[in-house]
């Protein structure tokens, strides 16, 4: 298998030496419409490097708001979000984190329809100081990893739902992020494609020790994660961690 972590070969070593949580939310609240809507309320959450966790909850429970806080595409109305113990204060701080350390896979794919699969992945490499040819080579390598080597130059509109989500995963991991977030990544896919996408994401977690946060309302998918966080009405109501050996005994892992 191709090593997609070429850009950050010391990632695992970094994590092992650092005992601070990868990301932590301290009393984070998110209000909308001047406080009329509370999406998150005093949420405390710590995610360690290498965690594989699922965030589950009903529709409108605050899952997406929570995941938006984790990747900094939204900001808390109160409370703090720390990355490796450091607060991320500005939008530029978060943009840099997303560029270097956080990959996001959305339910809606969020790909640029007028660009090819290769170009969509290449977009995530802008600002890394790579030449155009190196960007393309890297994007092609990651697309090959997700099994789309034969679709590099196809426009997104020519790809199936499963293929689009593979492109989205390739884009999310092309910078070898420490944290991979999937916001209902299988929500728009048929069961076969959903299984393949889920397998791909877990494989990344296992192969490279990538921290995986999976937002889903699919209990079966959530059950494959050693840690499950349940959210209801913007409050974390359950945070359970199943030790890996137990998962193995249950035959889930």
């Amino acid at each position, binding site marked *: 298998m191709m090593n997609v972590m070429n850009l950050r070969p010391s990632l695992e070593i970094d994590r092992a030496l650092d005992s601070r949580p990868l990301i932590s939310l301290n009393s984070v609240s998110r209000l909308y419409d001047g406080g009329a809507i509370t999406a998150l309320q005093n949420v405390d959450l710590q995610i360690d490097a290498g965690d594989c966790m699922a965030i589950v909850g009903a529709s409108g429970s605050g899952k997406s708001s929570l995941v938006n806080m984790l990747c900094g*595409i*939204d900001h808390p109305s109160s409370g703090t979000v720390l990355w490796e113990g450091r607060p991320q204060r500005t939008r530029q701080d978060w943009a840099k984190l*997303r*560029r270097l350390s956080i990959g996001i896979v*959305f339910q809606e794919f*969020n790909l*640029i329809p007028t660009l090819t699969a290769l170009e969509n992945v290449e*977009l995530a490499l802008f600002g890394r100081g790579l030449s155009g040819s190196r960007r393309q080579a890297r994007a092609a390598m990651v697309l090959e990893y997700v099994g789309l080597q034969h679709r590099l130059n196809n426009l997104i509109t020519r790809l199936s739902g499963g293929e689009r989500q593979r492109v989205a995963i390739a884009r999310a991991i092309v910078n070898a992020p420490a944290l991979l977030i999937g916001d209902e990544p299988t929500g728009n896919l048929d069961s076969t494609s959903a299984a393949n996408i889920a397998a791909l994401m877990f494989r990344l977690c296992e192969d490279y020790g990538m921290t995986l946060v999976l937002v889903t309302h699919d209990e079966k998918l959530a059950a494959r994660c050693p840690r499950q966080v349940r959210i209801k009405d913007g409050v974390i109501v359950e945070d359970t961690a199943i030790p890996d050996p137990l998962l193995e005994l249950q035959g889930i892992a």
Partner: protein
Amino acid sequence: MNLVGLALRNLRRRPLRTGLSILGITLAVGSALALIALSRSIKDSTQAGLNELGDDLVVMQKGASDIFGGFISEQMVERIAAIRGVMRASGELFMFAPSAGHTSVLTLGWPDTSYLWKNVPLREGRVPQQGERHVAVLGESAAASLGKKLGNELDLLGETFRVIGIANYTSVVNRGLVLVPLADLQEASYRTRQVTMIHVNVDRGGGPAEFSRVRGSIEALGNVTASTANEVLNNDRNFAILEAVSLAVAIIAVAMSALNVLNALVMATQERTREIGIFAAIGWSNARIMMSIVIEGILMCMIGCALGVLLSFLAAFAFPRIPAIGNLISFKPSVGLIAPVVVAAFALCVLGALLPAWRAVRMIPAEALRRM
């Protein structure tokens, strides 16, 4: 792929809007260039006309608002001619004179003994003889537009003149002239013993210091200014107004092109809110997102400016072939003219692109991603 390639893709996604925006810039830049070039060419053509007459100095009434406005007593010609260092001097009455069946024609009256007649580049015919009255020499364009040939009669200010010569001047203004004896024009316009300006030839052997002395001596006669042919139009109020109006309209035209870009990019960024959210979600910096939008504006501006310059050259080619324009002025866009207009258009278009770019990066990525 790079940011330019991405911008080109985005422009091609909306061909109609992109095309109309570019057309707006093209017309704005083209019309701005045309307006400024036209106003300059009127001055340049008049300047060339004065230069072609071979004057060293042109004497006008002090404080005259324009070259038509001042009046000097004809006696002043003799006083100037008597100044040491002045080789020769000639009065001139200068006006737009109504001609039967036509609009006004630019008419000059020179004394029948003036040295200026000797310098007329005749294509055919002759200049007036001493004491000859009610005769006219026409510039080629004037003859063509009036439909007159040698021996034809011409009505000016209600008086009849016989065409005795056709002059082959090179400057556009002089090609449209009608030259008549000064006395005839003074009588017909009720300006007996008055001239509009005095042409002066100075003995150049004395060098610049002597030239300045002669100039000072002329002005010391009182109530007149002596200017070189190149300076004479600088204080002309009509030209100043023309240039100011042209510049103002040109600025408005160029500003309109910036508004075109602004409008196109505001619409484009609104449509692409989600796309901008995607860029933010994958970690693009604000500067990079803004750059991607500004580059679209720059590309539209580049294409629009190039086409606008091309349009102005087409106008320069076509306008002289329209008699109503070509008989009066020449129209030549130059690098010195194009550069400031294009730079101004560019600067305004970049400013126009910055606003939607700035709006785009102010959006919260999560909200941008929710937009359809």
